[in-house]
């Protein structure tokens, strides 16, 4: 088992290296090179010739490509993600400020997804072809097809413009200085819509998976055996069917997290939430390449990490899987 985990971790290293090469090649595609924006005459007021020279020296722009890549990669490994073109601050520091917000939004959305998808999926499967099943499958189908930004916009129209119940942007009311429970309530009001939007799409797709997995498990011999033993329906479904049916679900769950993370780009942008996704979009508008590269590396790391987690969890939970 340990050797399996170690091997999987080691396999992730070349993957990360491959991604970093790709990202670096992308960086080189910048029209006029990575300093194009700094050299742009339009920004002459902000970047002096002297600063430009310093930047050139710093990045060693006249060295061959592979030398520059290795130097860049070595910097990354030391935690030096470069400095932002826009703010002049270290990229890692900027990401560090924003990432907790993104974790908060995606974490809550993940929790909501779990709390909704499991009960709905299980009931749907247990009462297959019931009204509830038809309703939840239809809603799930709508949920996977609805563009999240449209849903967000329409929710804003209803709950912010028409009813005035919920604030439209940010994480807290900037005009007030709330404390304690009131601050928590204020924070919750700000998070309701973003979390709903983000959770809906993943709930919709997860419900479909859970329903399918449960239907499969309910049809298996061990479920019939459990029923034949005279166990209560509750125990049969939750102990026997769910425990076995949940194994493939765990993998999907682990893969759902990076999806939420990526989806938060849109939600953070429309609700003006100061997270990493919004930082990415802002940096794209400003062509702040070091920040874009940094976020891309961190996001890739997260995707790989959760892929790894999915594989390891699957191996741990399913004793039939042999770790060769």
């Amino acid at each position, binding site marked *: 088992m340990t050797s399996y985990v170690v091997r999987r971790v080691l396999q992730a290293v070349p993957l990360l290296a491959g991604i970093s090469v790709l990202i670096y090649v992308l960086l080189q595609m910048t*029209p006029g090179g990575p300093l194009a924006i700094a050299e742009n005459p339009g920004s002459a007021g902000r970047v002096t010739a002297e600063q430009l020279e310093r930047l050139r020296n710093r990045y060693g722009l006249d060295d061959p490509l592979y030398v520059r890549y290795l130097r860049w990669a070595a910097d990354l490994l030391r935690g030096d993600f470069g400095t932002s073109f826009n703010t002049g601050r270290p990229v890692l520091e900027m990401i560090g400020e924003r990432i907790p917000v993104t974790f908060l939004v995606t974490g809550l959305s993940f929790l909501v997804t779990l709390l909704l998808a499991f009960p709905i999926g299980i009931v749907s499967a247990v009462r297959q072809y019931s009204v509830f099943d038809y309703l939840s499958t239809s809603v799930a189908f709508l949920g996977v097809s*609805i*563009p999240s930004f*449209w849903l967000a916009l*329409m929710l804003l129209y209803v709950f912010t413009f028409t009813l005035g119940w919920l604030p439209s942007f940010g994480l807290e009311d900037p005009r007030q200085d709330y404390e304690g429970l009131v601050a928590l309530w204020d924070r919750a009001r700000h998070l309701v819509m973003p979390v709903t939007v983000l959770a809906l799409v993943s709930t919709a797709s997860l419900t479909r998976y859970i329903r399918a997995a449960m239907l499969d498990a309910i049809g298996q011999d061990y479920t019939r055996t459990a029923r034949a033993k005279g166990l209560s329906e509750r125990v049969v479904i939750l102990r026997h069917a769910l425990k076995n049916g949940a194994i493939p679900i765990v993998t999907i769950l682990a893969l759902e997290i990076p999806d939420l993370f990526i989806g938060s780009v849109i939600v953070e942008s429309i609700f003006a939430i100061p997270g990493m996704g919004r930082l990415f*979009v802002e940096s794209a508008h400003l062509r702040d390449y070091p920040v874009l590269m940094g*976020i891309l590396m961190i996001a890739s790391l997260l995707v790989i990490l959760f892929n790894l987690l999915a594989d390891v969890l699957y191996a741990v939970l399913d004793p039939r899987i042999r770790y060769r």
Partner: protein
Amino acid sequence: MSEATKGDRLEGAHVLEQARLHGPSVPSLASHERPRSLWSDAWRQFRRHRLALAGLFTLASIVLAVIAGPELIPYDPERIDFRAKSSPPTLAHPMGTDELGRDQLVRVLDGGRVSLAVGLAVVLVAMSVGVAIGAIAGYAGGWVDNALMRVVDVFYSMPGLFVIILLVTLLGPNFWTIVISLGLLRWMTTARLVRASFLSLKEQEFVEAARAIGASNVRIVLRHILPNALSPIIVAATLGIAGAILAESALSFLGLGFQPPQATWGRMLEEAQKMVIHEGHWWRGFFPGLMIFLTIISINFVGDGLRDALDPRRLERS
């Protein structure tokens, strides 16, 4: 038990059942029927899927409206008319107008041309790359397969939307940079599907027979293996169009895709954002989003129907 043997077993049981019910009349019944091609068979199957049919009809209507609409409507998508600015839906402007008095219906239809064209073009790019890489990996095997699959892994591990945003920012947003950026991040699933089909198909007798009569590798791949691997590719391509339209809309919604004055559905939503939230001009956001939603859900239904219709393991073939 593998999927394939499970299917065989069920199919076998089905035939036995038929034989039991109909006795010796089964073979003669079959001989009366005209031989059916895969496509007419698939179409018969598809027609029974009512939601898929409804999806196909909706999709056809949208395509028709988007192609013919802008020619028939007496407004220009970029014509500014301040006398009619920010009008809610009326008979003259069924989807209302924006703050410059531009007719939203004609803009939605004109934008739809771009959105749909992007969807199709992205899938064309993604399928070309995916089929080529999957076919080479599956047919060649060995280290070629290994190397190509590691490339697939690398692309799979990149956060798609982030990379697309970076690419479009780097290349500058226009039709082809958007299409290529989206296409380059959407070919991996196809490559894996095609590789898997090729791995099993290349061992089959008909491929061996083709090789025995001296067919070249290119001919074997294109004429013998690829046609047999087509079903999953068609389903993936159909669903891929929906994904591509959604991705382009998201990109344009973030203000990083198509630039004004060109309307696309995502772009219109971006322009609508402030007006919907602060002025309550709901029609600005409702209609472009509804078009995206209807298109995506129709394509998803059609894709589901195709999956059932083209699945060779399905039980009912009548």
